[in-house]
C-alpha cells in the first residue's frame, strides 16, 4: 500500500517582495493530521509561508501542493484550507453568527445544513448564547473562539493559525494551548500554526519547523529540536543555551579554546570547527574551596571546567549563575537547591554529563 498523501507539500518555494527575499527556497512536507508549528523570530518568513499555503501571497517560484493538488497559484477561495488570523480579523460589522456563517454563505451551502453546521461549530467552541453579539462585545478569548469556529465550520482539510494566541494574556494563553490541542484531536485535521514563542511551539506541536531569515533551518519533534539542534541559531533560539566554540580533536573528543579536551558524540573529521551547546539546566555547580562535594559520585563520565562566579540571579524557583571560565562565560541554572546561593567571586567547578552535550557542525 502506498504511503498516504501528505497534507501539504512545499517544494522549493521562494517568495520575493521586490528585492527582499522573504522565503528562500523552502522544502517541507506536512502529514495529514499533524499539529505542526512554524517557529521563528519576527520577519523570518514564517507568516509569509503560511500565507502562501492560504493563497494570500503567491510564491515567486516553486511548487505547493495540498493533498496532492498543485495550488501554488490558486486564489484563496479555491483552496481547502482556512485561516485563523492574527488578531482574528473578525468582521466588526457582523454578529458572531454572521461571522461563522460567512464561509458557508459564500459557498452557497443550503440553509438547513448551514444552520446545523453553525450550531455545531458554536457548540464546539462553547459560544452558545453569544451568537447575536458583535465581536467588539467579546473578550479576547471569546474572539479567538469565534475565529476558530469561523474557520472550522468550513471543514477545511488544513487549518492555518497565525500567532493564534499572541493577543491573549499569559493565563488564558496556557488554557487555550490545551484547548487547541484537544480541538485538533477532536476534528482530526492538520493544524499548521505560526508562532514566535518557542515554549508555545514546544508545548503544542508534534513537529516544529524553525525558520530564520527566510530559511527553514531544522524540522523535527520538539525533543529533537531542543536536544539536538543542528545549528547555532536553533540552539540559541529554542530555550537558553551555552554555545562554546570547539575543534574536533578526534572521533569522540573535542578540544575547547582553552585547550581542554571533552567527550562528545561526534563523527566530523579532525580539525573541523564546531560549537557545543550546553543547556544551563544540565550544568552542575560545585564550590571548590568548601570541604564538601567536590566531584559527584553519580557522575562517572562527566566533563568539567573551573571558573569563578561572575553573577547570581535569584529567581525564586531557580538560581542562575554566570560562571566565568577562561574566555567563555557559562550559564548554569539550578532548580530546587535549598539554602543560600553561592556568592559572586566564589571559585567553582561546573560539570555536565556527556549526554548533555549537543555538537553543532554548521
Amino acid at each position, binding site marked *: 500500500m502506498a504511503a498516504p498523501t501528505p497534507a501539504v507539500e512545499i517544494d522549493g518555494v521562494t517568495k520575493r517582495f521586490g528585492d527582499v527575499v522573504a522565503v528562500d527556497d523552502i522544502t517541507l512536507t506536512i502529514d495529514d493530521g499533524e499539529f505542526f508549528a512554524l517557529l521563528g523570530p519576527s520577519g523570518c518568513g514564517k507568516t509569509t509561508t503560511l500565507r502562501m499555503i492560504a493563497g*494570500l501571497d503567491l510564491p515567486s517560484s516553486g511548487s505547493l501542493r495540498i493533498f496532492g493538488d498543485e495550488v501554488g497559484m490558486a486564489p*484563496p*477561495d479555491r483552496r481547502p484550507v482556512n485561516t485563523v488570523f492574527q488578531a482574528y480579523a473578525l*468582521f*466588526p460589522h457582523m454578529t458572531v453568527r454572521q461571522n461563522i456563517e460567512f464561509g458557508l454563505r*459564500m459557498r452557497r451551502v443550503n440553509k438547513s445544513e448551514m444552520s446545523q453546521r453553525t450550531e455545531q461549530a458554536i457548540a464546539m467552541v462553547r459560544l452558545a448564547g453569544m451568537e447575536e453579539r458583535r465581536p467588539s462585545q467579546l473578550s479576547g478569548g471569546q474572539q479567538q473562539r469565534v475565529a476558530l469556529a469561523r474557520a472550522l465550520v468550513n471543514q477545511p482539510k488544513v487549518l492555518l493559525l497565525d500567532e493564534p494566541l499572541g493577543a491573549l494574556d499569559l493565563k488564558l494563553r496556557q488554557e487555550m494551548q490545551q484547548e487547541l490541542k484537544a480541538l485538533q484531536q477532536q476534528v482530526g485535521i492538520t493544524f499548521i500554526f505560526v508562532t514566535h514563542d518557542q515554549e508555545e511551539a514546544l508545548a503544542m506541536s508534534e513537529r516544529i519547523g524553525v525558520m530564520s531569515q527566510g530559511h527553514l533551518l531544522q524540522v523535527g519533534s520538539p525533543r529533537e529540536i531542543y536536544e539536538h539542534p543542528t545549528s547555532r541559531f536553533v540552539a540559541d533560539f529554542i530555550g537558553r543555551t551555552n554555545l562554546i566554540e570547539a575543534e574536533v580533536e578526534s572521533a569522540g573528543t573535542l578540544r575547547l579554546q582553552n585547550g581542554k579536551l571533552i567527550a562528545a558524540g561526534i563523527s566530523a573529521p579532525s580539525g573541523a570547527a564546531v560549537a557545543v551547546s550546553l543547556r544551563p539546566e544540565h550544568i552542575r555547580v560545585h564550590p571548590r574551596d568548601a570541604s564538601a562535594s567536590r566531584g559527584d559520585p553519580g557522575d562517572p563520565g562527566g566533563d568539567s571546567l573551573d571558573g569563578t562566579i561572575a553573577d547570581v540571579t535569584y529567581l525564586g524557583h531557580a538560581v542562575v549563575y554566570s560562571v566565568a571560565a577562561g574566555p567563555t562565560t557559562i550559564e548554569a541554572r539550578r532548580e530546587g537547591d535549598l539554602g543560600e546561593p553561592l556568592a559572586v567571586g566564589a571559585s567553582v567547578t561546573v560539570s555536565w554529563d556527556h549526554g548533555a552535550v549537543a555538537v553543532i557542525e554548521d
Partner: protein
Amino acid sequence: MSEAAVETGLGQRTRRGMAVWAGAVFAFLYVPIIVLVIFSFNASSQVNIWGGFSVSWYGEALRNDAITSAIRVSLIVAAASTAVSVVIGTALALALHRHRFRGRRALDGTVYLPIVIPDITMAVMLLVFFAEAFKLIDSFGPRYTLGITTVTLSHVAFNISFVCVVVRARLDQFDRTLEEAARDLYATAWQTFRRVTLPLIMPGIAAGGLLALTLSLDDLVISAFVSGPGSTTLPVYVFGSIRRGVTPELNAISTLMLAASMTIVLAALAVQRRRASSSQQAQIL
C-alpha cells in the same frame, strides 16, 4: 481615568482664566448666529426694533419666486454633484489607496489642488474654461450657455477631491486582513468588496457625501461665476441681496440655511459617532 480632566501642569489661576476665555470664544462664535435667528422672528419690518414674535418673514421669503427658484437650483446642483462626486471620488480613493499604476503620483498630487487653491481662482479658471469650451462647441453648431449644468460640473470638480480625501482617511484605518479573511472564507474579490470592504468604509463615504453636500450648498464664489440667468443658487441670490442691505426677509432665509447646515452637521456627527471616538472630527489639509 476617563472622567478626569487631563493634568497638564498648569497653575490654578491660568486654568480658571482659560475657562473664562473658552466661554468668551464660544460666545463670539454663537452670539451673532443666535441674534440673527432671534431677529428672523421679528414681526417688525424695522430690522433693529423688536416688534414681537412672528414667522411672517418666512412666509414672505418662501412666496418670493426668486428665492424658491434659487432654493430649487441649489438643491438640484447639490444632489447631482454629490451623487456624481461620491461615486467618482470613492473609486479614486480606492485606486490611490490600494493600487500602484502609471500616473498615480501625478493624480495623487492633482487631487489636492482643488482643495488648496482659493475659490476665486477656481472660479475664474472655470469661467475662462467654459467660455473657451462654448466657443469651440459653437463652431460645430449647438449653442450652450452658462447654466445649471455648468454649476453642477464645477461643483463636481471640487467635490471629487473632498470625497476622495475623506474616504481615504477611512481606508487608512481599514484593516486589510479583514479582506484576506473574507478571501480565505471563499469570497470572491467582488463578494469581498461588497460584503466586507464597502460596509466598513461606508461611514467614510457617507461623511464624504455630507461634506460634498455642505460644500455644494455653501458655495458662493464659484457658482457666482459659472451660473447664468435662471441658474442662480441660493448663496448667489443671498449674496446679491446682502449687497443691497439687511432685510427681515434675508434674516429668515439665512436662518433656514443655518437650519439646513445644522441638520447636515448633526447627520455627519451621527455617522461618525457610530464607530468613532470624539477626536475623529478634526480637519486638516
